[in-house]
């Protein structure tokens, strides 16, 4: 019997994706997803981007999601297809990025028999997804997909995986559209929708009383949407309170604004870390007191009253005990704070925290990001500063790999809008940046997308240049080439007596020729006189470009709070020596 209202599992998947307004999917085919690829073949609403390794698909989906605010979607086959995305799923979980991963599975009747390309997908990915499913019954497929999108994008976002056995892709059932599905509330974990008025009033009264307040803003602000950042800007303007952001908070508040103290944490600004250490009121907006931010916990901001806005209840009091908290969405809460101030005519005008700002400006005089650019070898910091100056007028998205270059990018590239800065923070995944740039460029075809890379990280997912070339994605890979795993080398210098064990990146390819062999464009700057021209050339080319920027091999990333040290024990330059006792303790930390 051929029922017109019945569709195969593969068609149901496509219908659901359309219903979810998905227009791009990153994927790689294989035996267990052939029915889905067959369904993709005959349609035109969904653009499939063929990556060169599944790791590329998952990071591209992350880049797509981060740069667009939408859910990123990927499709992989069973077995090795899935195991290749485990890193990216973990990355998305750590950094709260909404993605949905569809994986093929061997046919139901073969599950458990060690069939060809079978693996326990839900078992392997359980700890690295927000939720996952094995769909054994095609009648449950529509509902499962819609729930997966809802879970991925609501509350604290994260990765969700749907494993679909091949027979289920062929089996037929009715399609249930999104609007006909009623989600069960307990499964969605969307956070509270009502603003905690008491929290707001308490906060205002503490702001009035405080002498040394600070905003500490993290990726949660980004995930709450653009409006969160608008409300934050309003609130900072009204109160004149200094603001520091985490690595992921960069861009939620304009980096060049005078109220911004820049990034805090291990490689954060001196003034930001000192202000956190000495503040009497800390207003945490969607940050999670990560160890890279807090440094040694017992010395973390010892004298402050702490307010915490975070949609994830498990972030409250996990690492640092706070005095007041709310789990309501940041946009809603900030809006309420602003309107409370307006409707009660609260004027912070007389309370401009001038002593506090005076102190902060003293700390600023240290010029912790100062570097000396000589007239030969390019300083990596200078390369980023120039990249910023030469691209800031453009609509630019920046992704990064992981290492020193990533921290220099965070320090010297300034972001004025959210979602422009896409980096792997929680997991610190080398090889993230280039595929993420592919994803960001897919979501923003007209914009300039730059992956600020280290040569070692770039080698980890280098195959994705082919993807960029195939889809004519003019991404720019800006390599700060120091021939070292620079961040590893730095730690070895500081903590392991300069024994540079296995951190030299030998046998590097010629990146220019490499680009050419992929049909991309290669450019190179060997010394300072070539830097600006190289950057300008890179920007002007409307094709994928690899820019090989030769930088000082021995440069270290400062300021730095070594692991196990406290905020006020920052090292500002290579001339600062670490307290030996901390050094021994720090060695065992990461």
């Amino acid at each position, binding site marked *: 019997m051929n029922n017109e209202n019945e569709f195969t599992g593969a068609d149901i998947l496509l219908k659901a994706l359309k219903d979810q307004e998905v227009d791009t999917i990153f994927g790689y085919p294989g035996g267990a997803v052939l029915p889905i690829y067959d369904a993709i073949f005959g349609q035109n609403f969904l653009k499939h981007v063929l990556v060169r390794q599944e790791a590329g698909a998952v990071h591209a989906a992350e880049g797509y999601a981060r740069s667009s605010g939408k859910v990123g979607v990927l499709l992989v086959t069973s077995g090795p297809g899935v195991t290749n995305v485990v890193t990216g799923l973990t990355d998305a979980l750590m950094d709260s990025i909404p993605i949905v991963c569809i994986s093929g599975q061997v046919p139901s009747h073969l599950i458990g028999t060690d069939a060809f390309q079978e693996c326990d997908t839900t078992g392997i990915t359980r700890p690295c997804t927000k*939720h*996952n499913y094995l769909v054994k019954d095609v009648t449950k497929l529509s509902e499962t997909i819609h729930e997966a999108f809802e879970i991925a994008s609501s509350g604290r976002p994260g990765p969700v995986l749907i494993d679909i056995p091949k027979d289920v892709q062929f089996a037929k059932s009715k399609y249930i559209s999104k609007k006909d599905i009623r989600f069960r509330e*307990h499964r969605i974990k969307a956070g509270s929708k009502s603003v905690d008025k008491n929290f707001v009033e308490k906060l205002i009264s503490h702001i009035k009383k405080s002498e040394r307040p600070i905003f500490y803003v993290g990726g949660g602000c980004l995930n709450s949407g653009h409006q969160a950042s608008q409300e934050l800007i309003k609130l900072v303007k009204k109160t004149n309170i200094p603001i520091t952001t985490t690595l992921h908070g960069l861009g939620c508040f304009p980096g060049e604004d005078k109220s911004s103290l820049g990034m805090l944490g291990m490689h954060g600004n001196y003034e930001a870390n000192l202000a956190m250490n000495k503040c009497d009121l800390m207003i945490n907006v969607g940050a999670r007191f990560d160890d890279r931010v807090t440094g040694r916990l017992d010395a973390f901001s010892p004298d402050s009253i702490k307010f915490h806005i975070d949609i994830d209840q*498990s972030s409250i009091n*996990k690492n640092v005990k706070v005095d007041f908290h709310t789990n309501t969405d940041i946009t809603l809460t900030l809006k309420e704070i602003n309107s409370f101030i307006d409707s009660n005519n609260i004027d912070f005008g007389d309370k401009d925290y001038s002593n506090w700002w005076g102190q902060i400006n003293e700390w600023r005089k240290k010029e912790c990001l100062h570097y000396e650019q000589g007239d030969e070898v390019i300083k990596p910091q200078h390369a980023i500063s120039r990249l910023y100056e030469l691209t800031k007028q453009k609509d630019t998205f920046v992704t990064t790999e992981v290492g020193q270059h990533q921290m220099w990018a965070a320090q010297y590239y300034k972001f004025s809008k959210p979602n422009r800065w896409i980096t792997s923070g929680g997991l610190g995944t080398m090889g993230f940046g280039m595929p993420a740039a592919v994803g960001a460029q897919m979501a923003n075809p007209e914009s300039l997308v730059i992956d600020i890379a280290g040569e070692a990280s770039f080698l980890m997912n280098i195959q994705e240049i082919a993807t960029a070339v195939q889809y004519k994605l003019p991404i720019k890979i800006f390599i700060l080439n120091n021939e070292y795993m620079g961040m590893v080398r730095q730690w070895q210098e500081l903590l392991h007596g300069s024994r540079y064990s296995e951190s030299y990146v030998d046998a590097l390819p010629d990146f220019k020729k490499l680009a050419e062999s992929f049909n991309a464009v290669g450019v190179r700057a060997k010394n300072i006189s070539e830097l600006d021209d190289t950057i300008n050339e890179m920007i002007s080319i409307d094709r994928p470009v690899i820019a090989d920027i030769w930088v000082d091999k021995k440069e270290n990333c400062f300021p730095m709070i070594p692991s196990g040290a406290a905020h006020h024990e920052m090292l500002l330059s290579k001339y600062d020596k670490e307290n030996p006792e901390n050094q021994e303790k720090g060695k065992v930390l990461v």
Partner: protein
Amino acid sequence: MSSTSVYPTPINAFKESKRSVLSVIVDNEPGILARIVGLFSGRGYNIEALNVTVVDVKKNLSRITIETLGEEKVISQIIAQLEKLVPVHSATNLANLSESYEAEICLVKIEFENQEQDQKILNYADIYRSRTVQKRQNIVVYEISGTSERINKFLDDLGTIGGIKVELVRSGPIGLGI
């Protein structure tokens, strides 16, 4: 089910360790137990005992009871982490309820050799009001229920009798807010 791990366990977890019994209502779906057990092992928490059963067939709900050790801060974190799991409806620390009742069931098989031992066993069984499930020539099986503490005491007392062989199974505590 006490577990030792090759990984270092967070020192904090044992600072002022307290026994807590957590009651978790979940959708009865594949993988839910693995999710919960994985959460505990992955984050270095302890499971001392675990009990899972469907409690509402119509709504497809199970109740999972977990006995765990940890200082208060850790227990709150465990609850928050449990509540983040998609199939979890609620997670409650029974100790935080104004009133709750706890019970455990234990089956004990005892092999004895002589009359004197038999008499002592009978005596304890009587004191603890345990029910005889089966009695053969030199084997007796008792069922005892109540708080875990009461069962521990019964077993301790049995242990004072020399020369007998004891085999047992315990359900782990279950509990309910009242």
